[in-house]
C-alpha cells in the first residue's frame, strides 16, 4: 500500500516559487496499479519522484505499507522500491546479468542466490537466460532493454514499484506486447504500483485506478470505468476525449452484460416453429441453430422461414458470428457494426451457446452510468463509493 499525505513540492525558480505538486493525498491499495495521468507539467512525475526522494518533498509524508518513510534512510528506502524510467537507464558498462543483479548485490545477497534470481527474472520476462545474460545493453533492442529494465526493478522483489512512463519510448506494436506481458506478470506478482503516463489508452488498459493531475493538483482519483462514466469537471472530460464512451467498451466484459435468454432452433424444428420463435424473441432477421451440444452450427433466415416449408436442417446458412464471455465490448461492438447485427450470441470455453449480448444492453449499460451520475444518486458498486471517499 502506498499512501500520500499532503505531499507538496515547491520549486524555487528565478521567476519565483512554482508549486509542482500541491497537497497531494491519495492511497493505492496493495496489489493495485495506480496510473498518474495528466498533461506535461501537471505534477504527476514530481509526485512519483517524491516517493523515492529523487525529488525531495517540501512538505507532506509518504507511507508505504503503513510505515512513515520520512525516518528511513534514503538508500534503504530506494532499495525497497522498484524503479523503472522512460529512458530505461540500463548501465551500458554492465552485462544484462550485472544490471539485473545490481539491487540484490547492494542488499548483500550471496552470489548463488542472486545469479539464480537473474535467471528466474529472465524466464519471467520471456528472454532466454543463456542467450542474453552475458550480453550488453547496447546489443539489445529497445523493447528487450525495457524488459530488462523491469526485471532489474523487480529483482529484489520489492513490494512497491514506481514506473515513470516506462513504455513511452517503445514503438506502438512492441508497447502493446510489453503492456500485456506486464499485466500478466502483475497478476501473479501483485505489486503495488504507481505508474506515470500521459496516454489515456494506456491508463485505461493498465490501471486499476487512475489519478488525473492538473497544474499540480489531483483533480480526480477513480477506477477507470467510473472516470470515463463520470468525469468530475470539464478539464477531465476534455482530457479523456470525446470518444470516452467508446473507451469504456474496453473495460467491460461480455460476461457482465450477457443475458441468458436466447432464442435457438434445432435442426429438427420446422421453419414455422423457427418463424414463431424469431417473432417471440423479437429478432429482425434470423435465429441461431444449434446442435445437440448447444454449439452453433448456422443461422436460419426469417425471410427464408416465411416463404419456405420444411425443416431448419435443410435451410440454414453458414455459422454465425459468436463472442466469448471473456471478450470485451469493443470487440462485440466491432462485430455488430461489421455484420449489421443488433445482437450476438455468446459462447463458453467449449463453444456452447450460453446467452446473447444485445446492442440495447450495451447502450443501456453505457447510458445508465451517465444517468446515475447526472442524478448524483448512490450507485452500489465499489468504484462510486471510492470516488465519493475521495471527495472527503
Amino acid at each position, binding site marked *: 500500500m502506498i499512501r500520500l499525505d499532503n505531499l507538496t513540492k515547491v520549486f524555487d525558480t528565478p521567476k519565483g516559487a512554482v508549486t509542482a505538486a500541491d497537497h497531494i493525498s491519495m492511497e493505492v491499495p496493495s496489489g493495485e496499479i495506480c496510473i498518474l495521468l495528466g498533461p506535461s507539467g501537471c505534477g504527476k512525475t514530481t509526485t512519483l519522484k517524491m516517493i*523515492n526522494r*529523487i525529488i525531495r518533498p517540501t512538505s507532506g509524508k509518504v507511507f508505504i505499507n503503513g510505515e512513515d518513510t520520512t525516518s528511513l534512510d534514503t*538508500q*534503504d*528506502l*530506494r*532499495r*525497497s522500491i522498484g*524503479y523503472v*524510467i522512460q*529512458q*530505461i*537507464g*540500463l*548501465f*551500458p*558498462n*554492465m*552485462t544484462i546479468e550485472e544490471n539485473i543483479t*545490481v*539491487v540484490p548485490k*547492494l542488499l548483500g545477497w550471496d552470489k548463488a542466490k542472486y545469479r539464480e534470481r537473474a535467471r528466474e527474472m529472465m524466464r519471467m520476462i520471456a528472454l532466454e537466460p543463456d542467450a542474453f545474460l552475458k550480453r*550488453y*545493453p*547496447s546489443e539489445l533492442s529497445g523493447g528487450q532493454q525495457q524488459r530488462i529494465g523491469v526485471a*532489474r*526493478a523487480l529483482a529484489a522483489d520489492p513490494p512497491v514499484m*514506481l514506473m515513470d512512463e516506462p513504455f513511452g519510448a517503445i514503438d506502438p506494436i512492441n508497447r502493446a506486447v510489453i503492456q500485456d506481458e506486464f499485466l500478466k506478470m502483475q497478476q501473479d506478482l501483485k505489486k503495488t504500483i504507481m505508474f506515470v503516463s500521459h496516454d489515456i489508452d494506456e491508463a485505461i488498459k493498465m490501471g486499476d485506478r487512475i489519478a488525473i493531475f492538473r497544474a499540480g493538483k489531483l483533480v480526480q482519483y477513480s477506477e477507470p470505468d467510473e472516470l470515463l462514466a463520470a468525469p468530475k469537471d470539464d478539464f477531465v472530460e476534455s482530457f479523456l476525449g470525446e470518444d470516452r464512451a467508446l473507451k469504456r467498451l474496453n473495460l467491460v466484459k461480455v460476461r457482465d452484460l450477457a443475458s441468458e435468454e436466447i432464442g435457438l432452433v434445432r435442426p429438427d424444428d420446422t421453419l414455422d416453429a423457427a418463424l414463431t420463435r424469431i417473432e417471440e424473441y423479437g429478432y429482425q432477421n434470423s435465429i441461431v441453430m444449434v446442435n445437440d451440444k448447444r454449439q452453433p452450427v448456422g443461422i436460419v433466415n426469417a425471410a427464408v422461414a416465411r416463404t419456405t416449408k420444411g425443416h431448419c436442417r435443410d435451410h440454414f446458412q453458414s455459422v454465425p458470428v459468436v463472442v466469448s464471455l471473456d471478450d470485451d465490448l469493443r470487440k462485440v461492438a466491432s462485430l455488430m457494426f461489421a455484420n449489421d447485427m443488433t445482437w450476438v450470441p455468446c459462447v463458453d470455453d467449449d463453444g456452447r451457446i450460453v446467452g446473447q449480448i444485445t446492442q440495447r444492453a450495451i447502450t443501456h449499460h453505457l447510458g445508465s452510468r451517465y444517468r446515475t451520475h447526472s442524478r448524483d444518486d448512490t450507485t452500489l458498486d465499489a468504484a462510486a463509493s471510492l470516488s465519493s471517499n475521495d471527495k472527503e
Partner: protein
Amino acid sequence: MPTLNLSGAMRLLMLAAVFVAGVWSQSSGVIDDFIFYLPDIQFLAVQHIWLTVISGSLAIVVAIPLGTLLSRPSMAKVAESVMQVLNVGTTIPTLAVLALSMSFLGIGTVPAVFGLFVATLLPITRNTYTGLKGVSPALKEAAAGIGMSPTQRLLRVELPNALYVIFAGIRTALAINVGTVPLAFLIGAGGLGELIFTGIDLYDPVMMLSGAIPTAMLAIVVDMLIAITAFLVVPRGVNPSRT
C-alpha cells in the same frame, strides 16, 4: 581488387626503399656512427623514460581525482571557472611552462618534472571532467533510484561510463609529455634532448638523429601502451573499439 594490388605494390616499394636505405647506411658508415652513440642512447633513454613515468603518473594521480571532484554537483558553481583557468593554462606553450618552473625551482630534475606534470595535468583533468559530466542524466537517475550511494554511483556507473573519454585524455596528455621531455634538457634534466640539442649545436646529424629517432619511437610505444590498456580496462559495453 585494384586497391589490394596498389597496397601490395606500395608494400614492395617500401621494402625496396628500406633495403636501399640499409645498403646505403652500411656503405657510408652511418650505422657505425649510431653504434658509437649507443651507450649514450641507453643511458639518456632511461632518464627520458623516468621523467615521463614520474611526471605522467603524478599527473594521472592528481588529475583524475581533481576532474572527478570538479564534476560533483556540489562543485557546479566553481567548476566552470576552474575549467576556464585550466583551459587558459593549456594554451601556454610547454617550453614557457618549463622556463617558468625553472625560474622558481632552479635547474635540474625537479623543475623539469614539475613543468611536465603541469603540462600533462590539464588534458587529463579536462577529459575526466567532461567525461563524467557527459554521463547521461538518465543513468545517474537510474543509479540513484535503485538505491546506490553517491560513492557507488561514482565507482560503478559514472567512472566506468566516462572511462573511454578519460583514457583519450591520458593518451593526449602523455603524447604531449613524451614530446616535451627533450625540452627538459634545456633546464638541466637530461633525457634524449641532450643528443638532439647538442647534435643541432654541433651540426652533427647522426648525433641529433640518435636522440630524435628513439624519442619518436618512445612516443609511439607509449601511445600504443595506453591504447592497449584502454582496450583492456574500459568495460566492453562502453568500449567503441570492442563492439
